[in-house]
């Protein structure tokens, strides 16, 4: 009951003020203004820019997380010596606070004191603008997301892999199917349902990416790497433009649900074909 109240109150509260003009700084009394907030947001180039940025980060990073995570999980599952040690070690990034991860990333990517620049300079690529060029900054953000959350995919895919029956593989081996074919014909289809669940969770969580961007690029250069939640954060906690922020949040919610439903709709036929 309490839990329900806590979960629902924020929803109700913010829905109600999303129809108001309400600023805490400078103090202004709330004033009902209908859909003005929504109209204003939808008409703002910045909103579409952050939608685009966030989507790009989410799509690329979740895709890479899944591919790498799946590959690593498969490798771990292959009973390689020391894989139990790997298992714990490889999970570590997801246990670290995103703020801390972003700080670490800034340290590594620092063009002057960071090791990565020195490493790449040895290969003849000095002074890459990791965080100060638009495209590089996006790439860096995606890389950090992948670094932190691939372990999540590894963990769950590994759990999934362990549920697969061994005899199917034995049967396939007898039929002289290559490892590669076995993977595509058995492993991948059988893990499709759990894969969908994992990707779905990652999409939802990735859309909320904020700390990483905030610490690494601050949304810059310009607004090139600004994400939805960072935008909402700036509006909400720097400007205390609460009505606007709430409206933004609801658009955000709608957007995620749309993306989620589209994703599920796309993969559904494939999943159902399996079961």
């Amino acid at each position, binding site marked *: 009951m309490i839990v329900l109240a806590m979960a629902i109150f924020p929803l109700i509260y913010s829905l109600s003020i999303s129809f108001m003009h309400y600023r805490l700084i400078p103090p202004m009394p709330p004033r009902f203004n209908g859909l003005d907030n929504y109209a204003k947001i939808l008409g703002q180039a910045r909103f579409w820019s952050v939608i685009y940025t966030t989507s790009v980060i989410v799509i690329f990073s979740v895709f890479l997380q899944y591919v790498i995570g799946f590959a690593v999980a498969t490798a771990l599952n292959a009973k390689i010596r020391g894989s139990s040690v790997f298992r714990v070690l490889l999970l570590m990034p997801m246990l670290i606070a995103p703020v801390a991860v972003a700080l670490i990333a800034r340290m590594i990517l620092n063009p002057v004191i960071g090791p990565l620049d*020195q490493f790449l300079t040895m290969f003849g690529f000095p002074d890459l603008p990791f965080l100060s060029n638009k495209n590089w900054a996006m790439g860096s953000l995606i890389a950090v997301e992948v670094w932190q959350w691939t372990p999540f995919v590894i963990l769950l895919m590994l759990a999934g892999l362990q549920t697969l029956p061994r005899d199917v593989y034995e049967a396939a081996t007898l039929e002289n199917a290559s490892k590669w074919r076995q993977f595509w014909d058995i492993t991948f289809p059988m893990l499709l349902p759990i894969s969908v669940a994992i990707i779905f969770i990652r999409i939802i969580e990735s859309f909320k990416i904020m700390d990483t961007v905030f610490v690494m690029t601050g949304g810059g250069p310009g607004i090139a790497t600004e994400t939805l939640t960072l935008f*909402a954060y700036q509006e909400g906690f720097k400007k205390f433009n609460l009505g606007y922020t709430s409206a933004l949040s609801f658009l955000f*919610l709608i957007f995620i649900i749309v993306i989620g439903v589209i994703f599920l709709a796309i993969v559904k036929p494939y999943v159902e074909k399996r079961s």
Partner: protein
Amino acid sequence: MKIGRSFATLGLFFWAFITLFPLYWVVVTAFKAPPAVNGGPTYLPWIDFDPTLQAWRDIASGLRGNFVGTVTHSTLIGVTASVLATAFGSMAAYALVRFPFRVKLGSGLIFFAIAMGGYLVLLNYGGLSRSNSMLIAFSAALVVAVLVNRMHLPGPIMGNEDIVFWFVSQRMFPPVVVAFALFLMYSELGKSGLTMIDTFWGMTLVYVAFSLPIVVWLMRDFFAALPIEVEEAALVENVPSWRIFVDIVLPMSTPGLAATFMITLAFVWNEFLFALFLTNSKWQTLPILVAGQNSQRGDEWWAVSAAVMFAIVPMIVMAAILGRLMRSGLMLGAIK
């Protein structure tokens, strides 16, 4: 076969390097003196820089904030919240797996309409405070919705799957707004005499509430994978439901519980925004302090690294302990 395996090993080592190098970097940086950091990258202690304990001495002396206090707070709140969330979430997940629920969409909508409408009306016209109007509107909505659910209603009926989806969709809402709304709610509760801000239970409750969706989502899958016969065996023996859950279901899902507990604890341990708004002096948590090392006057990487290590090490220790639990082959003997 052999080639494939060494290939996989090679790939693993490569990924392990990518994973571990940044962590190694944190560790060595935490023992560097400022010039060893600012002068360009240095890699090996004693060889290309002289390790120093300065950053740790700063932390120990309290110069960089109250680490002992925040670690204690984080541990207490994190463990309690994770235990409670895992407990409640498991129960809910178990119920959702084993018992079919049917909630009519209509009654859900009615609940929301009354809760929201009632809240707004009472707040703006009823002259009540936020907490009171919310409490009243909320209880009324719940009662009406439960009653309505028994009647015949047009519209689709939501089954367990939909309930779970609704649960998880809570996680979709941007935390920024949620944090502020919760802060408002807590401060109103504080005015009506129930201090929630900056209290142990206030924080714990928030974390329980916001960990539940993930716990339910994860535990649901684990419970669904359990052989139902084992529970039926107990059912036939006239074991009460709660004892089946406690004595049989929970022990059988130890690996899942361990994983879930770990994920929950990691979430609570690292959570930042709620902690920022809902704590002051008494129950400030570690992430606030770690984030604070990224100060306005510049990044003192040695201090940041030491602080980050403070935050990571307990998690790693716990991961190692729980990792053991997660690998247990307990299920083997249950069936077949």
